[in-house]
């Protein structure tokens, strides 16, 4: 049994050869990580540290072959659905229909990081009218235009209304460029007023029934469009099956998070956990394989815990991390400086919560969609973060910001204020661009200062 360790890409070359000699069995998308640098110009991989388990290898290969797998699905005659600005709702519906495969074009926001800007997507987005004052998700725009990344979807759906301003602008530009979009509306979540019927949502939230009805009607429309594409109605029985399968992914993720975050030290690195959580959104374009990838990771984490083998020391500072990072390297940096993740809110906590199976399926999905942290007040999100920080024994909180992202300009301050006021934990806010190398000394100093502060509080 190999002890857990973080490996550079070069070290993974040797590790892969070793595993291969030992009879490693891989799925069709398997292979050495190095090939993603050589074939796809994913140069950032050379700067990252990866977990050394076969489960992590499978996770990375799954993530990095998504476009390739989507093209293969298209070639097999499957219909491709682009679910935009929808963190975990439309894909549940799409995968309920045989022959449909949903993906998340917004995921192109990591491409400038992975390719270290060599793809020039951000510059091309600027030429298309979306400049650096917008979130790096603008990389999606030229990816649609040049067709060099994901295949052009057969159906493109996008939520609008109380969602990210940046994304709405980018998606509208996309439509102006000739890509037809099926829009569905998401109202801004509010508390039920006096006399209104309240509906319980995930995450201890409530919303008026009228809002749930509105979202359900919108999802009903989306269901019609998906059914038309699939040539088959998305009936309640099919959708209920789809919800059960999605919940299987969510249960696995919940167990993985619990196994890793609650452990005395980290059995898996923060970077692999971030990638794993992202799978909840659209199953990385393959729901069945997503389950297998998560099962492997969970088995690895459990085995390591039972053997008391960890990638961090027990003295590592327990950090709760808020928001995903544009540069994956930031997660390595945190651990290099003596931290570990003990909880996270990557802005889609509603996609980790189980979808109710005891409600009519569309109603259940509507309630889940309305629990999206991005469509409600920042104070709702802050309250959940505070609860989870407390439950997971966080010693400090990092709120990372995405340059240009503007769904709530003051959200970071609201979250930090709640954490300070309720738990008296030290917090920092960091802005992490797609490639943070030039900022690394400053980012490192802040993270180091946070950890010094947290450690000092242990002793007094």
């Amino acid at each position: 049994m190999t002890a857990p360790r973080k490996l550079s890409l070069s070290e993974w070359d040797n590790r892969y050869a070793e595993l291969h000699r030992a009879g490693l069995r891989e799925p069709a998308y398997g292979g050495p990580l190095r090939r993603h640098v050589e074939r796809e110009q994913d140069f950032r991989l050379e700067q990252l540290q990866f977990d050394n388990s076969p489960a992590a290898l499978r996770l990375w290969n799954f993530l990095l072959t998504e476009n390739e797998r989507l093209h293969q699905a298209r070639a097999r005659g499957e219909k491709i659905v682009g679910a935009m600005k929808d963190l975990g709702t439309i894909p549940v519906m799409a995968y309920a229909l045989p022959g449909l495969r949903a993906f998340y074009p917004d995921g192109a926001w990591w491409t400038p990081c992975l390719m270290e800007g060599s793809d020039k997507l951000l510059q091309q987005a600027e030429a298309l009218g979306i400049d650096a004052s917008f979130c790096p998700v603008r990389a999606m725009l030229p990816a649609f235009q040049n067709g060099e990344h994901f295949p052009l979807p057969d159906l493109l759906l996008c939520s609008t209304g109380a969602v990210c301003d940046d994304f709405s602008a980018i998606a509208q530009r996309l439509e102006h460029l000739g890509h037809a979009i099926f829009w569905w509306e998401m109202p801004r979540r509010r508390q039920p007023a006096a006399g209104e019927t309240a509906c319980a949502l995930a995450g201890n939230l409530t919303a008026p029934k009228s809002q749930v009805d509105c979202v359900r009607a919108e999802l009903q429309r989306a269901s019609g469009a998906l059914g038309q594409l699939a040539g088959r109605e998305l009936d309640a029985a099919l959708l209920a099956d789809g919800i059960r399968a999605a919940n299987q992914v969510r249960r696995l993720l919940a167990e993985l998070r619990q196994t890793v975050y609650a452990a005395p030290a980290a059995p898996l690195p923060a970077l692999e956990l971030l990638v794993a959580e992202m799978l909840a959104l659209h199953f990385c374009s393959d729901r069945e394989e997503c389950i297998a990838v998560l099962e492997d990771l969970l088995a690895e984490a459990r085995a390591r815990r039972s053997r008391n083998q960890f990638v961090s020391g027990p003295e590592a500072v327990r950090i709760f991390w808020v928001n995903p990072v544009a540069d994956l390297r930031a997660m390595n940096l945190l651990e290099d400086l003596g931290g570990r993740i003990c909880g996270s809110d990557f802005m889609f906590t509603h996609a980790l919560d189980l979808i109710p199976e005891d409600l009519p399926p569309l109603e259940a999905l509507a309630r889940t969609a309305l629990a999206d942290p991005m469509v409600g007040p920042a104070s709702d999100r802050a309250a959940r973060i505070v609860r989870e920080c407390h439950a997971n024994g966080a010693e400090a909180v990092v709120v990372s910001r995405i340059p240009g992202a503007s769904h709530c300009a003051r959200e970071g301050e609201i979250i930090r204020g709640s954490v300070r006021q309720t738990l008296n934990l030290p917090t920092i806010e960091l802005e992490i661009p797609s490639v943070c190398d030039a900022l690394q000394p400053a980012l490192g100093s802040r993270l180091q200062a946070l950890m010094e502060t947290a450690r000092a509080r242990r002793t007094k």
Partner: protein
Amino acid sequence: MICAGIDAGSRAIKAVLYDTAAALVLTSGLADQGVEQERLATELFDKLLREAGLNRSQISGVIATGYGRNAIRFAGTTITEITCHARGVHHLAPDARTIIEIGGQDSKVIALEDGGRVRDFAMNDRCAAGTGRFLEMVASRLEMNWEKLSGLAQQSRQPALISNVCAVFAETEIIGLLASGKPLSDVVAGVQNAVATRVATLAGRVVAPPVYFTGGVALQAGMARALAEVLACPVSVVPQPQFTGALGAAVLAAERVA
């Protein structure tokens, strides 16, 4: 027991030799920062040792801080400026609850608990408008040195309003103000207010008194007043504010050795 603290800042390297028995600073010194950070720090350190009649073997511990801390290999440990400034200010002013540190290329607001422990902090290291760099740019534009700039601000009767939050564009605004005949002293005081406003934004709405001001920019006459105005509470400058980080590093070194 003698311990040393080295603060390798962006503009200058500061060093302090601290006598733990007497709880006193034996000597301190400063050298301009440069490319060869370790050589510059070594020369400064050796100079201080000579002045104090000591040799390296008599130094029980050395801690380096500042943005260049990792280049100072003769230091046994590195600690961030946040922790070192907090310790240095607490040593000088045990009642401090908020520290404002404005250095050459960044600014920090540090909240302290009883006993000097850091409760929370905020840093600006992305925008020159809230740092000493902005004042340097203005001094250079006005073709005057740092001391003269400081003196001029004291003469202001009606500080100019610098509306731009970007140091580069503010420079254009300053040129316009001067061209329109605004007195130099009012422009300089306006720049100090602009720096103070940026730092106050970093501090947020609630700043717990007593507030102490440290870092090289605290030597600028008028800056403490500007901060006090925007924060709406008294702001005191610690003695020899440019050495607080190095002092904190030396005190922490002493605590670790003890």
